[in-house]
């Protein structure tokens, strides 16, 4: 992801939203506080945003606010899970996960009948990576292990990495947006942001 920044003025110009809207969305937590980057310029202080992220977010808000209230939207973007449970049948019916992946998940974890959001998220990430063929079943086990071991740390801005070198694979979770450097022969198989997965899953659930 690029680190390009956009100033507040340019952002409003580009998207056509007003100051009132921007502040309203911030108040409703639709735009996270840490995206507001304050820098001093020759006119005093100016606020900047990570360009790619903010444009994508505003686009999402604008297309979805027709159908959802701001509070529902905020719920969707929030990294915390909210309380609900889904049964196995419901999962398959809603097409959130495929049968083979679900069976694999159930055989790996203790068979649960009701899925809390956290289980769902792990399952969702597993499904995504297995379906895309990027990892195999053994590696899937490893993935679930890492996700469940560090479920409390792996929230907000965490990124999941899956790497492989000379046929040996490993997986790790990076909890902040720091840079990460690999050795030359290492192949980064997968790099996905957990908060994006959370959002994606939430859109599927609504």
């Amino acid at each position, binding site marked *: 992801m690029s680190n390009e920044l956009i100033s*507040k*003025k340019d952002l409003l*110009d580009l998207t056509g939203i*007003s*100051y*009132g809207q*921007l*502040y*309203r969305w*911030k*108040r409703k937590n639709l735009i996270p506080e840490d995206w507001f980057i304050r820098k001093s310029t020759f*006119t*005093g*202080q100016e606020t900047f945003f990570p360009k790619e992220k903010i444009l994508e977010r505003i686009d999402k808000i604008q297309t979805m606010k027709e159908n959802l209230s701001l509070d529902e939207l905020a719920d969707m973007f929030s990294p915390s899970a909210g309380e609900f449970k889904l049964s196995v049948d419901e999962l398959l019916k809603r097409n959130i996960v495929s049968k083979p992946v679900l069976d694999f998940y159930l055989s790996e974890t203790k068979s649960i009948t009701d899925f809390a959001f956290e289980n769902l998220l792990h399952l969702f990430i597993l499904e995504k990576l297995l379906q895309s063929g990027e990892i195999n079943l053994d590696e899937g086990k490893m993935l679930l292990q890492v996700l469940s071991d560090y479920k409390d740390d792996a929230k907000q801005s965490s990124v999941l990495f899956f790497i492989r070198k000379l046929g040996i694979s490993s997986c790790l979770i990076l909890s902040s947006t720091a840079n990460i450097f690999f050795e030359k022969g290492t192949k980064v198989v997968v790099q996905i942001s957990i908060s994006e997965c959370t959002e994606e899953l939430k859109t599927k659930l609504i």
Partner: protein
Amino acid sequence: MNVQNELGNLSINGLGSSSGGNFDSVVINGKGTVNGDIDCHSFSCNGAGTVNGAVKAEKMKINGSAKITGKIYATTLSVDGRGSFKGDVYSDKMSISGSGSIGGNVKGEELKIQGRIGVEGNCEVEHFKSEGQFSIGGLLSAENIVIRTYGECKAKEIGGQTIIVKQETSFFLDILKTVKSVKLAADVIEGDDISLENTKAKVVRGNHIIIGENCDIDLVEYKDTFKIIGNGRVNKSVQL
């Protein structure tokens, strides 16, 4: 000392302490200390109360002096005495007629100030109305902001939909002005519709901007309309 714990009520009359918990109503009339979190229906403090923990209440009223170290979640919160809150405050309806100082952020629907309030973090509500004094260390953000400058008003940044600042004039205030600044001061003010009086700011940005009496603004950036009324002073204005 008289601590009753009947029917889930906690009342401290005189000198007493409790360890917190769930209650229907919590009343502190003397000098009471609660060590622990409180979850209750109504909380009122008429004497000197200290809570070393968080308070969750539907109705919270402070007439005496209260010190609370944790977060506050109150559907309605009114401070007529002195409230000193170290953490964040979440309240749908908050009114400060006495004095309130908040170490964290304020979040809610409505905030009315007739006394004075100090917020170290941000203050984000839907409706902000001040007829007193305030000092906000971070951002003041609201859908509607109405400020009557009866006292010294300060915020680092102000942002919202409509921002109206009105100057108050009275004989008493005129005298006060000679010794103390009675103005709104902010670094940045941003909104859709802005109408200012008696304000000092570095930058004002918005769609429709009116700069009125006793204003001193370095830079105005506007989209649609811009007007100066009376002795308002603007260094530079740019249409975007």
